[in-house]
């Protein structure tokens, strides 16, 4: 804005200057003219011309008078007459000779008259110069001749006078005009100069003000820089330090004078202490972590911001340095506390796992023995005792499960294992299992479904089972001789299916004031006449958490004395495909197994081992025991078995490793392996599948479960589908949907992909984790598509490990993956060849 004003001023200046110059240009010739005119006026080439002309008449009259005086004076008057004649003659002569007068008279138009005058006096000469007596005598004639000259004389005088007068006037006027012009031009010139002077004084004021403003601004900036708590360093384009503020002095411990001799790269290194290339050529602002070197040589971690600007066509770089030691310390502390928390988490999880194993294993023993004893119990009383024992044992197990469950939920939240399941089957199973307990209290338990066939859904079956079981067992607890109805309705919505599960009972009901708190932890309601308070009070709490985790709602309607209605609303998507059917609980009855099997039992706990052995031998199976994985693997490799029951947690060698060994070599390589585990965690299921375990059963194992499990494989155990390198069914489906040349093209592509993957993965340590995870995911998908089951499972596990723990050491994975791929590749290659010739 100010600059445009300045511009305007400059335009004015130029204008005024040009006016002044123009005026000067006019002035010079004018001055010359004036000087000239002044010269003229000073050196007037004019006599008092008018006086001279007038004098003509005077002298004429005097001559005439002298002539008339002859009348009286006669000869005495002659000298006077002659004198007067001479004067007149001389006068006329002068008028005629002088160019000045001649011109004037001619201008007046009296040149002719002058001629008349001249000839007139010439004519008188003979008379005047003649004898005196003659002159006196002829005086009459003289006067006569003379009077003829009177008129011309008068004329000359009058007109000459007039002309000369006007001439003088004109000259005066011209002089006046000249002076006037001179005055005007001088005035213009002076105005122009004055204007310029005013302009310059204005400009001076503006510039002075500007200078003052700049001074204030620069002072302010200087103050900012000087008092800034951040270190500010200014350098030129080469990095030579040109400014170093007090904060920089105290930060880097450099005296200002010394710092000004240094280059920036002397003072600032990168994070690892290597020299940097500052100023960086980047445009715009950037910020980086670097380290600064103090005068005494030590390093300080810094955050360095660079800004650049141009000044006078030179680049100037400005650096802000911040000491980030505190920040780094805080980060470290944060990381440390996070690690501690993670360690604590892991410790907790480990504790949980251990505790659940520790608690459940003896319980398993108790219940197992009780199960065994059932057959050998003879008396009614003993049977009753046994029933009580079993019941207590079951209750205890239930409590342990609940506590461990909620502890795990609290520690890690609910991990829903989404898989397709058959809802009808689930409901049947749950209601069937609790019907006994219901009947024990004289309750009628019914199941109603709307629609009658609910179908398959995607969800966590186990947790859903937990919800329903919990609600039903609560209903049983608080109802005697009543009605318990399980009602499940399914309605289609755009999001999926809205399931409403209602458990209604005709029990004692819940007091209105307590209805809000039933879902809280450790809340147990008084059951009035009931003698024993059963339950930990955690059941509904767990249910609530599960429902919340599933994104549903739960609630209760109750009337004291009338009964209660617990409702749960969930939205579950409909299942697309059904992979596995959930085994339906068989109703009670004697179990037959089929043909006797050769069973290898690998279990470290002696009691459990004993129990299981007894159960199996009662069913006519042959049982070989091994107390840890190593022994078990040894035995399995030397001897072929129909089924191997493998405990997971064992000393010396666990079930997973033993399975690997068995599967790698030996006569039982393809034997069906069933894992027994006290705790089933999702991740482990993947692992089990991957090493080749066909089935996982959780402890405690009831007899029923054993039979069920064993019955599934009456015939020679086929290598499970889970154990295949290439699943032929998937491959078949895959190749049926494409043309044969596309199939082989695709398969060849996947072989290439696999080769490159293995190569890349051997360099896994130098790759960024995210890239690696994506790579694994992609290849895993390809494997799934063509049915490379084992490889796919391994990759899936690797992927989830990568996602879970980015610091995982990947080196143990390299060799197994390589081996797996080699095997898969061989089979793929064979298939391609085979498919090509087909």
């Amino acid at each position, binding site marked *: 804005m100010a600059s445009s004003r300045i511009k305007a001023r400059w335009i004015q200046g130029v204008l005024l200057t040009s006016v002044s110059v123009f005026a000067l240009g006019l002035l010079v010739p004018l001055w010359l003219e004036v000087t000239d005119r002044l010269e003229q006026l*000073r*050196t*007037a*080439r*004019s*006599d*008092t011309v008018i006086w001279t002309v007038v*004098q003509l008449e005077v*002298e004429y009259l*005097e001559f005439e008078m002298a002539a008339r005086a002859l009348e009286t004076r006669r000869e005495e008057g002659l000298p006077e007459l002659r*004198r*007067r*004649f*001479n*004067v007149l*003659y*001389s006068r006329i*002569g*002068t008028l005629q*000779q*002088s*160019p*000045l*007068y001649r011109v004037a008279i001619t201008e007046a138009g009296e040149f002719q008259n002058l001629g008349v005058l001249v000839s007139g006096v010439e004519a008188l000469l003979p008379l005047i110069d003649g004898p005196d007596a003659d002159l006196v005598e002829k005086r009459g004639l003289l006067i006569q001749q003379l009077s003829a000259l009177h008129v011309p004389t008068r004329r000359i005088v009058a007109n000459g006078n007039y002309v000369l007068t006007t001439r003088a006037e004109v000259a005066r006027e011209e002089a006046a005009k000249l002076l006037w012009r001179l005055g005007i031009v001088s005035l213009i010139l002076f105005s122009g100069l004055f204007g310029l002077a005013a302009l310059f004084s204005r400009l001076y004021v503006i510039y002075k003000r500007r200078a003052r403003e700049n001074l204030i601004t620069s002072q302010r900036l200087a103050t900012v820089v000087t008092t800034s708590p951040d270190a500010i360093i200014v350098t030129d384009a080469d990095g030579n330090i040109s400014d170093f503020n007090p904060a920089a002095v105290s930060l880097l411990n450099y005296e200002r004078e010394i710092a000004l001799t240094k280059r920036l790269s002397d003072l600032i290194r990168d994070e690892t202490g290597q020299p940097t290339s500052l100023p960086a050529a980047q445009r715009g602002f950037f910020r980086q972590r670097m380290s600064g070197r103090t005068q005494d040589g030590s390093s300080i971690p810094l955050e360095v911001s660079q800004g650049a600007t141009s000044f006078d066509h030179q680049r100037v770089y400005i650096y802000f340095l911040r000491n980030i030691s505190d920040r780094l310390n805080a980060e470290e502390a944060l990381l440390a506390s996070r690690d501690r928390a993670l360690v604590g988490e892991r410790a907790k999880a480990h504790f949980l796992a251990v505790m659940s194993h520790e608690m459940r294993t003896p319980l398993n023993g108790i219940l197992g023995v009780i199960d065994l004893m059932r057959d050998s119990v003879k008396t009614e009383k003993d049977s009753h005792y046994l029933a009580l024992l079993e019941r207590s044992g079951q209750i205890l197990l239930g409590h342990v499960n609940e506590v461990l469950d909620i502890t795990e939920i609290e520690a890690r939240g609910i991990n829903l294992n989404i898989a397709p399941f058959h809802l009808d089957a689930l409901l049947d199973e749950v209601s069937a299992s609790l019907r006994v307990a219901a009947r024990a209290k004289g309750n009628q338990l019914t199941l109603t479904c709307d629609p009658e066939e609910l179908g398959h859904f995607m969800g966590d079956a186990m947790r859903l089972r937990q919800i329903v079981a919990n609600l039903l067992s609560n209903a049983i607890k608080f109802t005697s001789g009543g009605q318990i109805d399980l009602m499940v309705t399914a309605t289609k919505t755009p999001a999926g299916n809205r399931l409403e599960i209602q458990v209604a009972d005709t029990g004692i009901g819940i007091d209105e004031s307590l209805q809000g708190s039933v879902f809280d932890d450790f809340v147990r309601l008084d059951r009035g006449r009931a003698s024993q308070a059963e339950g930990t009070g955690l059941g509904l709490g767990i249910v609530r958490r599960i429902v919340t985790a599933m994104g549903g709602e739960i609630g209760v309607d109750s009337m004291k004395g009338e009964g209660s209605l617990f409702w749960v609303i969930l939205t579950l998507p409909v299942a697309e495909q059904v992979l596995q059917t959930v085994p339906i609980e068989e109703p009670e009855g004697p179990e037959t197994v089929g043909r006797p099997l050769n069973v290898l039992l690998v279990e470290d706990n002696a009691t459990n081992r004993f129990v299981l052995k007894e159960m199996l031998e009662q069913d006519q199976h042959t049982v070989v025991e091994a107390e840890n994985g190593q022994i078990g693997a040894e035995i399995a490799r030397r001897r072929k078995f129909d089924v191997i029951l493998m405990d997971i947690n064992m000393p010396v060698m666990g079930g997973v490793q033993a399975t690997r060994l068995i599967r790698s070599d030996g006569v039982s390589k393809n034997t069906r392996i069933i894992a027994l585990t006290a705790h089933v965690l999702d991740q482990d299921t993947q692992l089990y599948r991957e090493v080749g375990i066909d089935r996982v059963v959780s402890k405690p194992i009831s007899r029923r479960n054993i039979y069920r499990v064993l019955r599934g494989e009456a015939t020679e155990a086929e290598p499970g589908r889970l154990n295949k390198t290439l699943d032929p069914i998937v491959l078949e489906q895959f190749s049926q949907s494409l043309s044969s040349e596309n199939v082989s093209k695709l398969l060849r592509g996947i072989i290439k992909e696999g080769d490159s993957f293995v190569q890349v993965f051997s360099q896994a340590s130098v790759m960024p984790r995210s890239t690696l995870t994506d790579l694994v995911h992609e290849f895993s998908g390809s494997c799934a598509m063509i049915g490379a089951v084992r490889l796919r499972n391994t990759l899936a596990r690797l992927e989830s490990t990568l996602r879970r723990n980015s610091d995982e050491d990947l080196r143990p994975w390299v060799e197994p993956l390589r081996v797996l791929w080699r095997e898969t590749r061989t089979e793929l290659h064979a298939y391609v060849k085979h498919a090509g010739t087909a």
Partner: protein
Amino acid sequence: MVGVSVSWGLRMNWSRHIWAWVVLVVSVISPPMSAIADSSSSFVLEVVFLDKKEQPVSSISLSMEELMALPVAEFETTTIWSEGKQHFRGVWLSDLMVHLNIAEEDVYLSALNEYLVEFTPDEIVPGGPLVAYERNGTSMSPRDKGPLWVVFPYDQDPKFQTESVFAQSIWQLDRIEVYR
């Protein structure tokens, strides 16, 4: 002629007495003779001395010869009363004043037509007013601004080209008045 011979005689010491006799004789005889002689030996300039009351006290009459005997001066100039360059020959007015012993007084010059003009002592300098008796080699008749015309060397200096100088350029000069 007489004036010339007198000055000659005065110069020579040893023949002074002789010449003084001759002069005496001649001067006795010459007045009447000059009266018979032509007008060229008559007086052309009358110098009158007056007192404060404007009464004539004394007078000197000068003839052309006497004037011509004074130191001669001449110059060339144009004038506004004539055409072309004119050659004037005469005597500086200053020299005339020296001859007349007039130094401190204003002098008044008048002409045949009673034209009167004043000269102050500082105006009467050599190189200034010239009493000219010859123009272009010939003497001037009264009918041609003669016999005596006071002229200035107009061309030589602009200060001679002013109206007052022109006014002082009196022609047909016949009389000088001095007040003492």
